[in-house]
């Protein structure tokens, strides 16, 4: 175990998996000579060479499709989007090719590819560079969607994603590359997809949070503890497959649920989880499921407005107090 940043943990996962399997290659904008716009791919070109670590032109649809084609005939590409904002240009290949190829070929062509990069809110870059897109990708059968919230989860889940035989959307939170945590250096340290992690145990209310909202939810839980409310914080870690069983078990214990997310509320992942809870555990609820989502607006630039657009500790605290009927 070693204390490393999220950035270093991701770098270790990439390096270890590329050393493990020659069919894995990495491509994207500035991943090689520049060493990654966020330095996640630092040192990889030097160690693995230009055949395995490939700088692409700014041509997202093209290189995403090229990756899917390479996956059709046995390679295991890792396609980095400099940010997931730019993946919007590549959605035809991600959705129409990667997600559907296995099905429409009657099971003949699996697509073992990872599309990864930073997503979610960034620091004061306004609307086009700061948004959460997981509900888009999670919508499509055929894709898996992963969102780590700690360095250890990032490493273990990225390694699992690279070894997975399906297309995986792996969204790293742009604000979280510098956070530190203990990470295993076992080359076979893998966290299976589809297994939620209980980040904090509690008895009075369940807070479901992912990605950047996990540390925010944990801070809220700390504050609530002082107010006499014991919160359980569940991080699904993967949106698809979603570990609904762990969520339902917690709901049955606490009977109160708040779902925190950075993304817009409308047609979002929290809406889906809320619906699942209603269908599976309605009788266990002592209050309606409460969502704390990002503001339903494009992301503004001004710092004070940006802060208002992203869920805060205070908002989560207030939501928990609301479902606990404390105010």
């Amino acid at each position, binding site marked *: 175990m070693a204390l490393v940043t999220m950035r270093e943990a991701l770098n270790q996962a990439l390096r270890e998996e590329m050393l493990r399997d020659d069919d894995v290659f990495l491509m994207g904008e500035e991943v090689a000579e520049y060493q990654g716009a966020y330095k996640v791919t630092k040192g990889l070109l030097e160690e693995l060479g230009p055949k395995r670590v490939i700088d692409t032109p700014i041509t997202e649809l093209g290189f995403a499709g090229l990756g899917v084609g*390479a996956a059709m005939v046995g390679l295991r590409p890792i396609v980095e989007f400099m940010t997931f904002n730019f993946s919007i240009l590549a959605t035809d290949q991600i959705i129409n090719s990667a997600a559907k190829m296995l099905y429409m070929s009657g*099971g003949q062509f699996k697509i073992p590819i990872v599309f990864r990069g930073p997503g979610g809110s960034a620091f004061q870059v306004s609307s086009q560079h700061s948004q959460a897109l997981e509900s888009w990708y999670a919508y499509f059968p055929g894709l898996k969607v992963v969102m780590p919230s700690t360095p250890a989860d990032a490493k273990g889940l990225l390694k699992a994603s690279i070894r997975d035989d399906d297309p995986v959307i792996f969204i790293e939170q742009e604000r979280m590359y510098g956070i530190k945590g203990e990470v295993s250096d076992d080359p076979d340290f893998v966290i299976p997809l*589809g297994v939620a992690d209980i980040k904090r145990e509690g008895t009075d209310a369940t807070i479901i949070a992912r990605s950047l909202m996990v540390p925010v939810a944990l801070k809220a839980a700390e504050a609530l503890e002082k107010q006499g409310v014991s919160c359980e914080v569940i991080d699904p870690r993967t949106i698809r497959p979603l570990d609904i069983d762990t969520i339902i078990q917690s709901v049955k214990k606490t009977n109160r649920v708040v779902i925190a997310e950075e993304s817009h509320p409308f047609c979002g992942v929290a809406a889906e989880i809320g619906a699942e809870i209603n269908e599976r555990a309605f009788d266990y609820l002592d209050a309606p499921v409460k969502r704390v989502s990002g503001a339903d607006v494009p992301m503004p630039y001004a710092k004070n407005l940006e802060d208002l657009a992203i869920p805060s500790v205070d908002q989560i605290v207030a939501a928990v107090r609301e479902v606990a009927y404390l105010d």
Partner: protein
Amino acid sequence: MRKRSPQPSRVGAEDTSATGVMDEESAETEHPRQSTGDLKAAQKSRLAGLDRETLVNIYHQMLLARRFEEKSAEAYSSGKIGGFCHLYIGQEAVAIGAISAIRKDDYVLTSYREHAHALAKGMSPESVMAELYGKATGCSKGKGGSMHMFDKELGFLGGHAIVGGQIPLATGVAFAAKYKGTDQVALCFFGEAAVNQGAFHESLNMAQLWKVPCIYICENNRYGMGTSLERAMSSHDISQKSCAYDIAAEFVDGMDVLAVREATMRAVERARKDSLPTLLEVRTYRFMGHSMSDPGNYRTRAEIERHQERDPLKLFSASLREEGVLSDEQFKELEAQVKDQVEKAVKFAEESPLPDPKELYTDVYATPLDAHRN
């Protein structure tokens, strides 16, 4: 009438017989083509260099594609085939000529107008017809239909129905062949309308930048659904678009199956030996509508008939007959053989079972979602 400018990065320049000759009778000023007489003369000179078995096999494939699709149209009209059904009649020389120039272990990717390509790559008429019928025995287990045929063993990689979507995919397939150090090549077929998509330009740029063995075959049939080339493209010379990417290019008369074969062979050699891509603009024409539901009001009967004079199947059969490759009797035998193949395919499709309802939920994931925690 605009004369063609010289080819910017033309290759195979010694072969001028199929290229650049304007048909003075044509009203389609931007779609130069050889006269029927010129085409036949050129075809016969090509024919002389080929063995009988190859020639007969190519003709057999063309005839099979034609009869197969005529039968598909019947089955579609009687409601046995659903969805969209895009027929290839008139364009057979392109797929069959090009695919005759590659090895079995090479790859083919194409658009939704794909039945002939699938057959030419060696897929059985039974598996293709059963797929059209949406049966469990179809090449994609009835999940793909007319637009999504696949056969992994035979290197037929679809069957893609977003215009231009197969172009980056084929580039990646060729990229993988180079990565793995095989000498396989990928043929990527698409219509001229796909050239207006970003996917075409992004792919050609990467292909030449990274030197991948992909052969881009633009089947220029003049119409993107009902919109003519002239109404959709500011510069009508597709082979010239190769200049922007410094990619080798050639333009070919797509009504001459042997011209297509020869041009593809030159491109394949460049791909296999030097790992370089090529853009072929193959000028062809579809005799039927865009799909079975297309009334075809955007073009005249006279225009279609003018192109039907250059029916690739008729021209090739005339060459084979006149050069004594096949006798009248042998033509009849082949016709009967193909009829039998198509009838067997229909019978197979008719008698095959529908997909099991359980198939609805299979093949969504290689590792199903519920398997992760078990």
